[in-house]
């Protein structure tokens, strides 16, 4: 199957290795992976800031770039949800674009969901060994039902021990622009998340959305924790250590 990888703007900027890990996982699952080169951002920051025009501009761009492919996969529940569940509403007033948004929507997947439920990845390529605790990112969890998929994939690695943290489903406090507009509140919420995660004494905090991971990592380091690793689930699944 032909799969277009939506890298996401944060991965492009901050952690390209997550993009390459996603690429490797999809190829291992037998997909032909295309990375449309003109892709930038899904437009969620504009949409959540109330700028419908800017959100629509970027929605149309993504639709035009990705609608030709059988599937679109993103290593982020948040971005996948934006394309899948928000684009039709953003473009509701433009019948042609709305139709194209709807036609694309059901083919857009978060990475772990796609690997488990569509591509049915047989064997995970990595050899990560250590204990991990999993943070469920809000949008993936509550809008796309991402909960068992990453855990099922991690369970395929014999060296991984999953230690569930208390309140794993609680928000980490990122919230996109919220993290900058209300930095103190955001960081205080992140502190609760880090405290819960660290109480498991896991070697790594793992999640499926880079925004949350940057927030958690930033708070951990500020709290003086320099050893707990913060990793995207795709990095863990492809780790060669």
């Amino acid at each position, binding site marked *: 199957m032909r799969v277009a990888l939506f890298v996401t703007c944060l991965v492009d900027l901050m952690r*390209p290795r997550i993009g390459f890990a996603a690429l490797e996982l999809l190829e291992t699952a037998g997909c032909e992976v295309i990375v449309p080169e003109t892709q930038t951002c899904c*437009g969620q920051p504009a949409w959540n800031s109330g700028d419908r025009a800017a959100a629509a501009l970027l929605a149309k761009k993504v639709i035009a770039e990705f609608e030709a492919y059988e599937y679109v996969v993103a290593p982020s529940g948040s971005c996948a949800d934006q394309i899948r569940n928000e684009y039709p509403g953003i473009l509701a007033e433009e019948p042609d674009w709305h139709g194209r948004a709807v036609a694309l929507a059901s083919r857009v997947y978060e990475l772990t969901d796609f690997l488990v439920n569509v591509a049915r990845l047989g064997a995970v390529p990595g050899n990560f060994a250590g204990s991990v605790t999993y943070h469920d990112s*809000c949008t993936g969890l509550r809008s796309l039902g991402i909960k068992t998929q990453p855990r099922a994939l991690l369970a395929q690695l014999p060296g991984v021990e999953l230690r569930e943290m208390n309140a794993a489903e609680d928000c980490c406090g990122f919230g996109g622009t919220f993290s900058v507009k209300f930095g103190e509140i*955001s960081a205080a919420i*992140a502190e609760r998340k880090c405290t819960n995660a660290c109480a498991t004494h896991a070697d790594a905090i793992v999640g499926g959305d880079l925004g949350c991971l940057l927030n958690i990592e930033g*708070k951990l380091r500020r709290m003086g924790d320099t050893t707990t690793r913060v990793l995207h689930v795709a990095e863990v699944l492809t780790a060669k250590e």
Partner: protein
Amino acid sequence: MESRSRRFKANALAALANPVLQGNLKTAKGKFVDKRAIAIREIDDFEGTREAAKNLRNRVLENLDLWLEQFEENASARGATVLWAKDGAEICRHVVEIGKRHDVKKAAKSKSMLSEEAGLNHALTAAGIQPVETDLGEYILQINDNEPPSHIIAPVMHKGLDEVADLFEKTHKTPRKTEIPALTREAREVLREHFLTADMGISGGNFLVAETGSVALVTNEGNGRMVTTLPKVHVVVTGIEKVIPTLEDLSTLMRLLPRSATGQSISNYVSVLTGVKQPDDHDGPEHLYFILVDNGRAELVGSEFQDMLRCIRCGACMNHCPVYQTIGGHAYGWVYPGPMGSILTPLYTGIENAIDLPHAATLCNQCGVVCPVKIPLPELLRKLRETQVDTHLRPWFERIALKAWAWVAAHPKLYGLGTWFGVRYLKWLAGGKASIPVLGTAPGWTAGRDFPAPEGRTFREQYAAMRAERRKSS
């Protein structure tokens, strides 16, 4: 009540620095969230019940005027007087007039958030009628110089035991007590006197039942029953959206309300009050008034914010909100805090008066999944943000930054160039370290945490290089 929502950021910082509040918030989260999670398991089909509740509330809102007329007709037939209030000032005018008509000196109140919206206590005092709050939490706030509540069902959740002990000692002029049972006994003794001497009882109303003309009250302390049965006059102050068609509908909503609010299967008291005292009744008011209040609600009917009118004031959204759990209720600045407050405050007090509130949410949707009437709270918050943009209420630099960023993101070559420079700049700032402690372009981020350093080359660069490599080797 005058809104202090404009000062949200300053209020929130003060809340973060308040150790008593922070301690109480931690305990409250455990109580409300965990207890609700257990209580909802008692219902075989909780999701189905939520859906039924949503549908029945929607059915009301589609013909709100007709249900209100039916309520008025049935309440009037049982001897009650139904009055209408456009805003808070009109609520106050009605209650003061009723007080004068019946020569009222003292009014005992059970909890009513609408009386907070109206600032009713102030108006009563000015008119020479003594208002006495009889909900324990509200009473504590009243004797603390009419402090506003910080939660819609647990109004003093921001207070510590010591503070209450001090207040009671000072107000009641009794020896200081620090045990909760002793403090509640003292409150009970003080309030009993007020129940017996009040000429008027004022209550809110959780629901108005159209088919019987009744008001349903959901309480835990029993003060609601005292207030509504002992004084000769009972005034119910509630919003026009609280009407429901039938007692059967009430039973559906009652399966959800106490469980969502306090994690109780049923509250200690559920009262359905109908009409004035009849000749063979043992108790009840001789005069019963309903003041049905608009105060911004009618305008929401048929608008893109109509879903908000389904709200049954359980507080589950704030109990589960990561922001509320971090800053408590006072920071929001008006009557209603948390997600529902961040929607109602701008809608009822003016969008321009609560600019920060719709943005003070991570849009995590924990509120949306626990709301017993399935209000899409994050979606309504986002719509309010959109309304702010459309009406030019956002700061100019934010508007320009968004437009410029979107324009660049729509031009891949330019975007590639920008990110090429951006990641190198950030990498340079990190100076070989894994994170950046102070980021001038996003001071909000680094106020409370580091900014992790980027790898140093964008994905698109590395991918292009990899493709070139692959082409060369093939």
